[in-house]
């Protein structure tokens, strides 16, 4: 995806655009029987446009199912404000312009009652503006880039407990809580060149430096890097006690495989994103996961109200455990339902005001927002222990009371 030639990208773009256009037309025709113009009777229509085709189609499938599950569940309980909920879903093909056009159409032509958000900072950056301009509450299930919230939108809300800005918080607190003699004295930073991971790595650097942890290696690699042996060997030469790795996908296990090959095992290892991937353990060997830390926006094991019912219900319905995207969509639905129910009517401004002044209990924990729609919480700190990803902080959500401070050597 990162490395294809220009022709290929153009062909893909054309294919995706055609598919999106075809699906949009289909959606238009199929929605002709739906609500035209807002009404106080009949089903409540909730509009959204998702990247159902295109390069992230596989990831967004879970997100779509999360919304479907939420709508089915709420309808089974009698609906919202006594009315059934009906989803009006369009496909943006992961194209910004299509997403803008879709949400404009949902508001201006379809006259949907409410909106729910699409996925990624890439799409939400522009779609949130459409919702704000039309004064529609816009609850996004993903898209935590700072630039989204820098505009201080009134109607925008992020349905996750925190953004990248808070990613290092709990791990840094953990280091701080260790006796000074046991704290790692040196750290290596290795990061994929990506806005998300680079921002996190920058925050880690500042905060760990504040604790007196000395940086002995610092490098950023291109997203399509696949050979990590030379990088692992350079880190081995620097011999840090802690490695903080800003990983996104297969680069997480790849660096560990290279560490194993060059014979280097840090005393502590923190990786972003990758350790939560379902293939993480199988790609490095389950025993080699022991002790690795990561930050999570959601865990299927977190003891928040409704989470275990969601996990079992979703698994039974879709024959597979919910992904983080599925949980985030469901959470966005929970937030919207809580606000609409509390306000008692579909009044966008009143719903936004209520959300700005209240806390909503969700499957990702209690959510509340700043005036710009940024969540006020923190991510979960998780650690691989005995072949399972356990939550170790905060204590209110912890699934394990122990923390493995010294990562065992590779097996």
């Amino acid at each position, binding site marked *: 995806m990162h490395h294809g030639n220009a022709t290929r990208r153009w062909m893909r773009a054309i294919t995706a655009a055609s598919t999106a256009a075809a699906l949009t037309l289909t959606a238009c025709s199929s929605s002709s029987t739906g609500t035209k113009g807002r009404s106080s009777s009949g089903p409540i229509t909730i509009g959204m446009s998702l990247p159902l085709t295109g390069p992230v189609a596989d990831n967004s499938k879970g997100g779509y199912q999360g919304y479907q599950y939420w709508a089915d569940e709420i309808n089974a309980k009698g609906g919202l404000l006594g009315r059934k909920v009906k989803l009006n879903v369009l496909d943006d093909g992961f194209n910004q312009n299509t997403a803008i056009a879709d949400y404009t159409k949902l508001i201006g032509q379809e006259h949907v009652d409410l909106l729910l958000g699409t996925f990624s900072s890439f799409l939400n950056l522009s779609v949130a503006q459409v919702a704000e301009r039309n004064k529609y509450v816009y609850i996004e299930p993903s898209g935590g880039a700072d630039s989204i919230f820098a505009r201080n939108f009134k109607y925008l809300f992020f349905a996750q407990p925190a953004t990248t800005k808070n990613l290092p918080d709990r791990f840094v607190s953990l280091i701080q809580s260790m006796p000074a003699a046991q704290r790692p004295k040196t750290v290596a930073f290795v990061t994929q060149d990506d806005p998300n991971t680079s921002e996190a790595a920058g925050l880690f650097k500042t905060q760990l430096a504040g604790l007196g942890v000395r940086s002995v290696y610092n490098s950023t690699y291109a997203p399509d890097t696949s050979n990590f042996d030379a990088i692992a060997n350079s880190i081995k030469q620097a011999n840090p006690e802690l490695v903080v790795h800003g990983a996104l996908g297969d680069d997480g296990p790849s660096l560990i495989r290279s560490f194993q090959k060059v014979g280097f095992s840090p005393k502590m290892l923190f990786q972003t994103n990758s350790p939560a991937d379902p293939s993480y353990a199988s790609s490095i*060997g389950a025993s080699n996961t022991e002790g690795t830390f990561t930050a999570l926006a959601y865990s299927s094991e977190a003891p928040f109200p409704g989470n275990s019912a969601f996990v079992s219900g979703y698994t039974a319905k879709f024959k597979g455990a919910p992904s983080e995207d599925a949980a985030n969509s469901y959470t966005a639905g929970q937030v919207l339902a809580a606000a609409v129910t509390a306000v008692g009517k579909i009044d966008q401004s009143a719903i936004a005001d209520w959300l700005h002044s209240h806390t909503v209990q969700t499957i990702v924990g209690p959510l509340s927002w700043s005036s710009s729609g940024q969540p006020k919480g923190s991510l979960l700190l998780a650690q691989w222990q005995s072949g399972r990803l356990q939550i170790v902080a905060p204590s209110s959500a912890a699934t394990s009371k122990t923390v493995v401070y010294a990562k065992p050597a590779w097996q």
Partner: protein
Amino acid sequence: MTLLLQTLIFGVLIGGVYALMSSGFTLIFGVMQVINLAHGALLILGAYLSWWMWRHTGVDPLLLGVGTSVIMYGVGWLLHKAVVSRVQRIDPGLTLVASFAVAIAGEGVIALVWGTSRHSATPSYFNTSYHLGSLIVPKAQLYACLGAIALLGLLFALLHGTFLGRSIRACATSRDGAALVGIDVDRCMTQMFAIGTATTGFGGAALAVLYQFIPDSQDVWIGRVLCIVVLGGLGSLGGAAAGAVLLGLAESMTSAYWDTRWTTAVPYMLIIAILLVRPQGIFGTTLRREGAPA
């Protein structure tokens, strides 16, 4: 000094792996003048087949690569008969578009069959190394590199020591001339395409052990393979090997001595440099084209 030696070892071993991945591509171009953009998808198919068989049998995935090569030979034969030869009759230039279409369709089929989750084969040696004093030689890379040398040797022996090989070389020099002396050109072309595709069987097996892969990984590999063959000279087996080692060394040296951010840009910088100085590639030759048919 140790760091330099270690970096050279990593570079040569990665280069060996790259040579393995690109040998079939350059062979098909050298003989048939077909730029097979489906090569990356075929490599990934080879990786999936090897991984799938390894998972179900527990047999070493690199050994399974031999079996995968046989399957990929059949895939190549079918692909040539069903797509390449038909398109070539209409317009030889269309094979580029057709193979690109095969790559996209193939990626979709792989995703339908095996899903889009990440996989990798993890035999006992996948993360272990030989230690020569303070130097490290990763076992999986070494085995893949030795496999590449064996494969290139086999291909060389096939081309130079068998009647089929001589027929193929005759077709590469002049199809009309080869037909005039009684060589079945169509059969030779099909054999050549199938043999070139068969290399993706072992290449895919090595990929399955060394890297994690998803259907989309073909993009990275077709890009890398194109870089290697342009560097070495399109159609030259020796050139592909040299280009691959040069690329592996350049990547490792950049990573160790310059900036990891630039590692994946190195192939393109090398290509620009080579195209400026020697447009036909390091080992490429410029040949007089056959006259257009009347």
